[in-house]
């Protein structure tokens, strides 16, 4: 239906055109216009919170409702969210409408430093173990490519840590201390640079093409399903 698809697509095009054109206009008006737009976007973005929160909570809620396997764990999602939101709104008794007192650890920050930070940091750090085990069990020189890759990886891994300087000294005396760091540096500065730049150029062309497809309504997948 035209008001479900046509107009939105027209909006995309118009907004895109404005965004594109104003980049080339030095006139103060274009700057003011952008300020207007960006403030609006900031406000709209704020509302995005509700969507994220809803979809996540809704998912866990339906798990609990349907008694899906492991639904009990979903309760903790609500628990965590509820506690943090309460602490934030309570705001040491000052209520949600005023700023938190500066430079005292509020209970919200307490929750942040001692629950959120440890959990997130740890979950990410677990990968260190998995990599080590993968390194032993699955990273194989199946072919020339993999061989090059692993070789480069080893040089870089070794060159990037201080011990490689000690090792260099050990082998070649004082002069050799920079051998391995230099090796990894060279590897990063030349082959790595070349490949990364090639990728960068290719990918950015792709990105531009993607933007075009969006502008001209050829790419609509971001609109989600429905008519």
């Amino acid at each position, binding site marked *: 239906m035209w008001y479900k698809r046509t107009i939105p697509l027209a909006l995309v095009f118009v907004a895109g055109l404005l965004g594109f054109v104003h980049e080339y206009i030095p006139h103060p008006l274009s700057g003011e216009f952008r300020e207007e737009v960006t403030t609006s976007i900031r406000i709209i973005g704020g509302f995005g919170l509700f969507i994220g929160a809803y979809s996540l909570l809704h998912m866990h809620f339906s798990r609990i409702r349907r008694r899906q396997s492991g639904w009990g764990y979903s309760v903790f999602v609500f628990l965590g969210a509820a506690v943090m939101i309460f602490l934030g709104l309570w705001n040491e008794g000052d209520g949600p409408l005023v700023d938190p007192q500066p430079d005292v650890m509020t209970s919200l920050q307490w929750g942040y430093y001692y629950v959120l930070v440890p959990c997130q940091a740890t979950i990410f750090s677990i990968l260190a173990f998995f990599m080590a085990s993968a390194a032993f069990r699955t990273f194989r020189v199946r072919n020339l490519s993999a061989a090059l890759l692993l070789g480069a990886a080893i040089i870089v891994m070794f060159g990037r840590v201080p011990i490689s300087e000690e090792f260099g000294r050990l082998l070649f005396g004082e002069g050799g201390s920079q051998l391995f760091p230099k090796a990894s540096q060279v590897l990063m500065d030349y082959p790595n640079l070349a490949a*990364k730049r090639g990728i960068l150029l290719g990918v950015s062309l792709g990105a531009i093409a993607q933007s075009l497809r969006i502008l001209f309504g050829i790419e609509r997948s971001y609109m989600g399903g429905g008519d």
Partner: protein
Amino acid sequence: MAIPPSELRRLAITRHVIYVLVAAAVVVPLALGLTPGKFEATPYSHKLFDKVNSLPPGTRVLLSFDFDPGTEAELLPMGAALLRHCFRNRLVPLVMTNIPSGVDLARKIVKEAADRSEPDWGRKQTSGVDYVFLGYRPGDVNLLLNMGENLKGAFQNDYYGKPTEDMPALKDIRSLKDLPLVIDLAASAWVELWIVYGADRFNFAYGAGVTAVMGPDMYPFLQSGQMVGMLNGLRGAADYEVLLEKLDRGTFGMMSQSVAHVLVIVLVLAANARFVYRRLTGREKD
């Protein structure tokens, strides 16, 4: 060929053994407080350090701490070192973040650095005069564009709700164009967004601290001069600490880093030696 359970159990065991080795490689050096012998800072860390060092006292430097707890271990030491450097050289750091869940991390290190540097200045560091913590505003890249037009418009108040309009620290700073140097610490696309929507549009010198994961991808920008320097991973933080001659978490981590790397290298070599041997003797087709 299905794997017999015995084989699976063997796999599980090898895995757990490796986990233990890794844990040991990291914990032991830290617990014993081993630090590596003297090592030279990598070139790009050095470049960034020199850039900051070259700024005259009173210069305003924008630090954008766009990371959250997930990568705090790598980036937070950089932030601490940079702030320490700023305060030591009497620069005025303007700190912001584009990541809501990074606000309190940023706030924490700014506060700590300010308090720590009190002796350097001989007086209490005051927010709004010696440094500004702008906090977080949504809007993503549009926020950067906004700051490029009108910084005080984008941040009408600082994190503590004080109006930025007539803050001494922001005197005659109208927009990003008035800042000589911006440094971004990020584990995400923000590093590049700062180039695209910031440095290249508003012509300020730009440096970055990134997680080692992203490090290699940044080389095109370093070579093209779109970045003046870069701290790459925990090693970058260690480099900066060494250059500052004030060792801290980054440097203390380096010994564990070294041992763990060696461990991984040994594992890869061992496994592949076995693999190649088997392949040569035709016992593994793959």
